[in-house]
């Protein structure tokens, strides 16, 4: 498939015709192939939908000009986008025209990872999959099938696999992303942060960003609110080893030594407690175990923190006092991607506690209580009773894990314990780039009898699949209705704007077809998704037709702060904010966070840090030609002194070698004063090695490839990835 020869091309077109025929033969009732046929309409058409270039799900309006996709803008009625998409969303239409897209189902013809397939019809693909699944079910039970899915598009496949009998469903958004944060906050306040974050940035008077590089991290509402806070002259404090864009907006920039944030947080709390700068009423009323906490914290003076963090004690004191001045509208942002060093839940707990001292939880300018549009689900038959517990966290090895752990499933797949996993279904997550240590992922894959990847482009993970199923992109399909927990209640719909150019199919169709093939057709009482959506919308007095026109509808106004009437309740065991956590103590963990010094890079090595670029989403947008045109490769940020020491020149190409001898693809050097000398930084998601991704192949280097080492958070199983060290290998 690397290069389609003429002969092969003919063959493929032959297959495509066959596929269409096969589809109608399998199920005449399915109307999935129905064409939208907008071509005939002249002039401008506006079609509301919501974005899928990341998981923020901004409401959007797609424009067609003479039936051709023209542009996409924010939906003015949408509370998440407020009429403005982020750059990735704006460039999202490039996903439609991406020449590297998958076109038809593929079945592997050589050994795994060799990226050689034959094109097949959907019918053949489903036959192949169903046969293997039934075999696995017969031999190992349905739980031997695991599903990895990221994003709302996975809902229907999840339904099919639940119906099949497995509960082993996980996403990298927990153990590789926000897990530690959510668990840390749950342990403290009894409630998680969730997505979108419940942070009231726009009303905060003092915003503390610990690594959250808003402005590069383009989660739309967060960035918009950040700009509002800047405009309103909120005091911004940024803690980051790198002078991020956010740092350039900050009144106080704390150039922290990587991995030492907990020391800083403890010192801040030390100052605030010892100077009695906290919200005394709030803490007295809602706090639990404050005395023990205060006693414990008294040892962590700014002077103690200084050698750890490199932050001047006076700066620690000043910033602690500034935070206190603005309480309760002081928001110490909990971050999102928090799997950094292995003690991340405890660091997140420290952030939660600092917020508790400020009294910001439940308060305007702090953490609001999200409200959500409620709409009944579709009445399905009950799923089969699970015969075995989930595989990812045997014996509650990670006692505080609140969601499934992807890497736990991977471990089980490698070891066969607690029971064997024989099949992976992967939907919209590029596990090769999302999970640390790709060798382990490959090892797990080699134990599988069946690996199915549903993707839109030939991603790295698709390269390892037995069957690759090409999905229609978000602009070509319906998805489930979405209502995010946010400041106001709203409901949004995704609907097709254009037809899929080739033989791609939407996830709901794939899920339903597969279910039917597996004899689970009774789980899909509806004929097509329009019927499903209309059914649900009718329950709230709406119709699909109306919803398609509006795109977004609003719910009732609801209070979101204590000030507005939210009753302060905390779902912790004590019913209070747990400054001291008995449940942690009981499980053998520190009830008040402690600082652990991170391992230091050997000499000549630098800690590898990574993050986001505003114009790309993870590893999914690098072949989108519009976004590629904005940024086609990543660079390695190197402090100027270090560069001089190594004789590096700006824009020269080097390779990076990590502590385990893994060498990266070549990457451009960016010499800068915007980073500490003990670390280097690159944008995640580049350095693709899937040859079929022609636009992105070999451009820049992959952080994921260099992350061979990771540390697992003992509380919840998150995989910390900021623990790798690299050095430079000169390019001849």
């Amino acid at each position, binding site marked *: 498939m690397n290069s389609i020869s003429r002969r092969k091309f003919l063959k493929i077109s032959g297959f495509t015709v066959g596929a269409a025929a096969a589809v109608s033969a399998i199920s005449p009732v399915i109307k999935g192939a129905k064409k939208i046929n907008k071509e005939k309409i002249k002039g401008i058409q506006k079609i509301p939908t919501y974005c899928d270039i990341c998981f923020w799900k901004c409401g959007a309006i797609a424009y067609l000009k003479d039936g051709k996709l023209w542009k996409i803008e924010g939906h003015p009625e949408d509370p998440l986008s407020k009429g403005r998409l982020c750059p990735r969303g704006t460039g999202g239409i490039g996903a439609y025209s991406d020449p590297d897209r998958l076109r038809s189902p593929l079945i592997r013809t050589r050994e795994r990872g060799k990226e050689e397939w034959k094109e097949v019809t959907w019918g053949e693909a489903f036959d192949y999959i169903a046969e293997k699944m039934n075999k696995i079910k017969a031999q190992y039970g349905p739980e031997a099938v695991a599903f990895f899915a990221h994003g709302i598009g996975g809902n229907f496949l999840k339904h099919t696999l639940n119906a099949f009998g497995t509960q082993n469903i996980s996403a990298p958004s927990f153990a590789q992303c926000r897990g530690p944060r959510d668990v840390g906050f749950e342990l403290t306040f009894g409630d998680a942060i969730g997505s979108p974050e419940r942070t009231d940035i726009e009303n905060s008077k003092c915003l503390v960003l610990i690594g959250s590089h808003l402005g590069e991290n383009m989660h739309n509402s967060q960035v918009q609110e950040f700009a509002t806070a800047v405009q309103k002259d909120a005091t911004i404090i940024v803690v980051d080893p790198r002078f991020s864009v956010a740092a350039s907006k900050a009144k106080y920039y704390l150039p922290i030594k990587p991995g030492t944030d907990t020391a800083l947080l403890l010192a801040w709390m030390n100052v605030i407690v010892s100077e009695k700068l906290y919200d005394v009423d709030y803490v007295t009323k809602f706090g639990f175990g404050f005395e023990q906490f205060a006693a414990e914290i008294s040892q962590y003076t700014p002077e103690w923190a200084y050698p750890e963090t490199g932050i001047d004690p006076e700066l620690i004191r000043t910033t602690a006092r500034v935070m206190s001045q603005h309480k309760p509208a002081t928001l110490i942002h909990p971050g999102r991607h928090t799997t950094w060093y292995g003690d991340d839940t405890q660091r997140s707990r420290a952030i939660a506690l600092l917020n508790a001292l400020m009294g910001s939880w439940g308060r305007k300018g702090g953490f609001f209580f999200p409200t959500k549009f409620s709409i009944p689900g579709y009445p399905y038959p009950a799923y089969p009773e699970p015969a075995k517990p989930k595989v990812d966290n045997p014996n509650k090895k990670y006692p505080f894990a609140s969601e499934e752990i992807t890497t736990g499933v991977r471990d089980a797949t490698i070891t066969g314990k607690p029971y064997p996993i024989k099949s992976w279904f992967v939907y919209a997550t590029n596990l090769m780039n999302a999970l640390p240590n790709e060798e382990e992922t490959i090892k797990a894959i080699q134990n599988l009898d069946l690996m199915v990847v549903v993707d839109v482009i030939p991603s790295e993970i698709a390269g390892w699949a037995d069957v690759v199923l090409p999905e229609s992109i978000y602009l070509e399909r319906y998805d489930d209705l979405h209502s995010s927990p946010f400041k106001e209640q709203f409901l949004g719909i995704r609907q097709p704007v254009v037809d899929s150019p080739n033989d791609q199919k939407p996830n709901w169709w794939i899920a339903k077809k597969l279910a039917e093939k597996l004899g689970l057709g009774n789980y899909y009482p509806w004929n097509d998704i329009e019927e499903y959506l209309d059914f649900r919308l009718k329950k709230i007095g709406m119709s699909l037709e109306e919803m398609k026109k509006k795109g977004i509808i609003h719910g009732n106004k609801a209070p979101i702060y204590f000030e507005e009437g939210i009753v302060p309740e905390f779902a912790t065991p004590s019913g209070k904010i747990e400054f001291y956590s008995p449940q942690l103590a009981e499980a053998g963990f520190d009830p008040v966070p402690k600082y652990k010094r991170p391992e230091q890079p050997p000499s000549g090595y630098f800690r590898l840090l990574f993050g986001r670029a505003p114009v790309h989403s993870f590893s999914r947008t690098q072949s989108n030609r519009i976004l590629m045109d*904005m*940024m086609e490769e990543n660079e390695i940020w190197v402090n*100027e002194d270090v560069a001089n020491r190594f004789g590096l020149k*700006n*824009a020269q190409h080097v390779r990076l070698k990590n502590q385990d001898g893994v060498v990266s693809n070549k990457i451009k050097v960016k*010499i*800068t*004063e*915007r980073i500490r000398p003990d670390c280097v930084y690159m944008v995640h998601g580049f350095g693709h090695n899937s040859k079929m991704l022609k636009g992105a192949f070999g451009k820049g280097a992959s952080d994921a490839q260099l992350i061979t080492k990771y540390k697992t958070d003992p509380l919840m199983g998150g995989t910390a990835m900021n623990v790798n060290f690299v050095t430079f290998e000169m390019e001849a």
Partner: protein
Amino acid sequence: MQELTTTRHNPQIDPFTTVWGWEIPVYLFLGGMVAGMMIIAGYFLFKEKHKNSDSIANYIPLISIVFLSLGMGSLFLDLEHKLFVWRLYTTFKISSPMSWGAWILILVYPLIIANMLMVPPSFIVDRIPQVNKITDYINARPRLIQNIGIGNMLFGGMLGVYTGVLLSTMGSRPLWNTAILWVLFLISGLSTAAAFVHMIAKNVQERELLAKADNGFIVVEMFVIALMLIGLATSSQAQIQAAQLLLGGPYTAPFWVFVVGMGLILPLVIQLLAVNHKIKHTPVAPIMVILGGLILRFIIVAAGQYSHYFNAHFK
């Protein structure tokens, strides 16, 4: 350290401006040389030197036409929207040297042709015998010939000046933005023309005269270059930076080696020896002058595009 980065990546613009490649320097060079040849031919006509049948004045116009057409051809090649080239002649824009140039070129042709028709080349006469009538008409009128000479000098001068003005009106490019550039291009045009003509001249006297003239032009040109660099180096920050391109920057070596060394000093020495009859006239010196003139245009066009306002260059 100051770090300056841009996300712009327009072809011909980034990392630095290269909108004009080889075509424009070649056009400016040929234009300048034709200008010089027109002035020389015009001078000979004015002085009635053309009466010697082996006078170079009788051959220059044909060469001029060929060179000018090559120059215009290369200008045309540079246009990105060629089908619309006629738009040049639907308007005259007084503020645009490019527009001036377009019209000057149109006016220059008849003058050169008039000159040429005094001794029309045989391949034309053979095909269009009627030409002889015009030839006879002109040759019967010495005042007309003198006027054709004056016209050639005048428009030659305009053509030569224009090639420099085209660049020097670009306020955006500090290296070009110097009032002396037109003098430099005019004198260089004269010098290359003199070199070319004396290289092919059959008449010994004319050859001597042109070689001497060329020596004069070369001396003046060196003087003008010095003035230009001093002017830039004592001007605004941007222009100081621009001068540094030729005084220690990326264009320094080719400029001093090829333009000044091999294009001016060396040929001057050779030609001084030649006119003082220490050595024989050979094409070596003139070829060096001509190449020097060509390289001068290349360097000025490239370095000028590279030169930029302070702060505007990216890493």
